């Protein structure tokens, strides 16, 4: 638990200096990016206003101490609070991450289980091919193909080309509107995610099925269905849970490319934009958000582990 602190501190250090190693900064991008002649003094003034002229260690101190006073600073590009910029996009990204996880779990666990039970038959080979293809397929390409299919399909059948809506509405206001926007990116990312989970389910279940107590259960004539559902599947869920946890934490930031394809205004897109604008403050806060999410998920997974498996105790 306390080991989280050096990790987070190291991550903060890494991202802080990585960003400052870039030649150029937000002021140059904003002023020189217009292509007009800009006075060097004007850029300098802008830097001063944003605190970029302060010594690096002072900047770093401000960055880290911001976490203790809950003052994350402002976006250097828009001038609004970082917390505000994140808050307006947070809902979309989290909802998308949850939906992708649901898609993945619903697809993956039955598929992985079937593939393990029917090991080395054509069913197994089909599922394995399906899941390796899922890992191989870039999710942004799957997204493009889905939109392409929707556009061409809707034109053919309804006469009008139809696109998923671009603006986010809360699912509590307009459930179907929300779903019609987010289900497609959820499928596009969920497929890859499900592939990872299905592979894990398969290998974990295969391992458990070789255990002695499964042989005992079979020998005493227990129905195969109960053996699989109660004895084997439950015990094989631990590693599957870990992989779901890891993937979920990374989804929030890892949707970077998918959000671009579907024109979604989420955290991933914000990240790409802030990197492009060299908005140091926003970029480092976003990276820290993802890192904190990853570290916390690891902690939660560890705790759930101990709860599910009484043999595991943390001293």
């Amino acid at each position, binding site marked *: 638990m306390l080991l989280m602190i050096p990790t987070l501190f*190291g991550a903060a250090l890494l991202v802080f200096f*990585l960003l400052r190693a870039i030649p150029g900064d937000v002021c140059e991008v904003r002023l020189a990016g217009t292509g007009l002649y800009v006075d060097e003094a004007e850029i300098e003034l802008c830097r001063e206003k944003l605190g970029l002229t302060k010594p690096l260690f002072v900047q770093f101190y401000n960055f880290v101490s911001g976490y203790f006073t809950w003052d994350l600073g402002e976006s250097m590009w828009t001038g609004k609070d970082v917390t505000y910029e994140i808050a307006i996009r947070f809902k979309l990204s989290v909802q998308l991450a949850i939906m992708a996880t649901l898609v993945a779990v619903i697809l993956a666990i039955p598929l992985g289980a079937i593939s393990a039970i029917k090991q080395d038959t054509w069913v197994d*080979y089909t599922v394995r091919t399906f899941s390796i293809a899922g890992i191989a397929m*870039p999710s942004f390409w799957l997204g*493009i193909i889905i939109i*392409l299919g929707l556009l061409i399909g809707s034109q053919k059948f309804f006469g009008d080309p139809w696109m998923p809506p671009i603006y986010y509405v809360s699912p509590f206001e307009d459930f179907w509107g929300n779903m019609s926007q987010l289900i497609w990116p959820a499928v596009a990312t969920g497929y890859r995610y499900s592939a*990872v989970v299905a592979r894990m389910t398969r*290998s974990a279940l295969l391992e458990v099925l070789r255990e002695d107590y499964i042989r005992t259960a079979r020998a005493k004539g227990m129905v195969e269905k109960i053996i699989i559902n109660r004895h084997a599947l439950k015990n094989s869920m631990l590693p599957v849970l870990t992989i779901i946890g890891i993937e979920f934490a990374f989804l929030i930031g890892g949707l970077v490319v998918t959000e671009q394809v579907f024109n979604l205004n989420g955290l991933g897109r914000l990240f*790409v934009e802030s990197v492009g604008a060299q908005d140091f403050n926003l970029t480092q806060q976003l990276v820290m958000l993802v890192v904190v999410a*990853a570290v916390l998920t690891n902690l939660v997974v560890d705790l759930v582990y101990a709860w599910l498996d009484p043999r595991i105790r943390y001293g």
Partner: protein
Amino acid sequence: MASVNTTTLSAVEDIPRKHWFVSFGQLCRQQPLGAAGGLIVLVMLLATVFANVLSPYDPEAASFEHMLVPPSADFWFGTDAFGRDILTRIIYGARTALFVGFTAAFVGATAGLVLGVASAYYGGLFDLIFQRVVDVVMAFPLIVLALAIVATLGASTVNVIIAITIPFIPQCARVVRSSALAIREIPYVDAARALGFGHARIILRHMVPNVMAPYLIMLTTFVGHAILLEASLSYLGLGVQEPTPAWGLMLQGGAEEFAESAPWVPIFPGLAITLAVFGFNLFGDALRDILDPRLRSR
């Protein structure tokens, strides 16, 4: 004495030597998916070597009389908005993908190998600090770290390779370290130390060869990962730059535009990425099953 020697020699020769063709057939039977993956990789390698023989077109030169031609006998996969043949760009794009993939995977896995073994061998403070560094780097999603590095260095093919390599190093180091920890406990390492061998020699000659199995497995999976990552970065405009042919770059542009004008433009490069990564993954899986059945996770 001499007769004994000849009999033992002939006995050795009596063991039927497996022809390479026979062992290949065995591989196909035992690991059909792996053999299929190997075939895909082989076809890709051949395509990169004979790219200029395979295609009559120039992958970079624009040709305005052939803009957005649908797939036909002349242009099998059609042409893009600059009139460039898509099949040609896919074949040349395999060069870019394999170059980035192999370089990043090899450098990343090898650096990880040496660092991982050294970390296990020295133990103590070095191990502790190195593992914390690994923790930090691994807390970043791959694409986020790669994006940040590319943003720092600027977008170009070499920088993309660097950006992909750096996140690979700790991943490989962690896996290799756990195998190396077990090897360090085997008495021959103590024996080597007792004989007065230097640290570098023990690490490189005695320990590294024994962790080749996880290293090779990581290496093949990394190639697939690297190809996918390069495609993502190029798609975002932060990777390989025009006019170099790269698969991710060919997918740039909105799906809406494609649907109206040329649906064939995004389909084929994406298939190429999928097929290539698919091939490397199948091959890596088979390799894992052959080399180390215990590592069957993920």
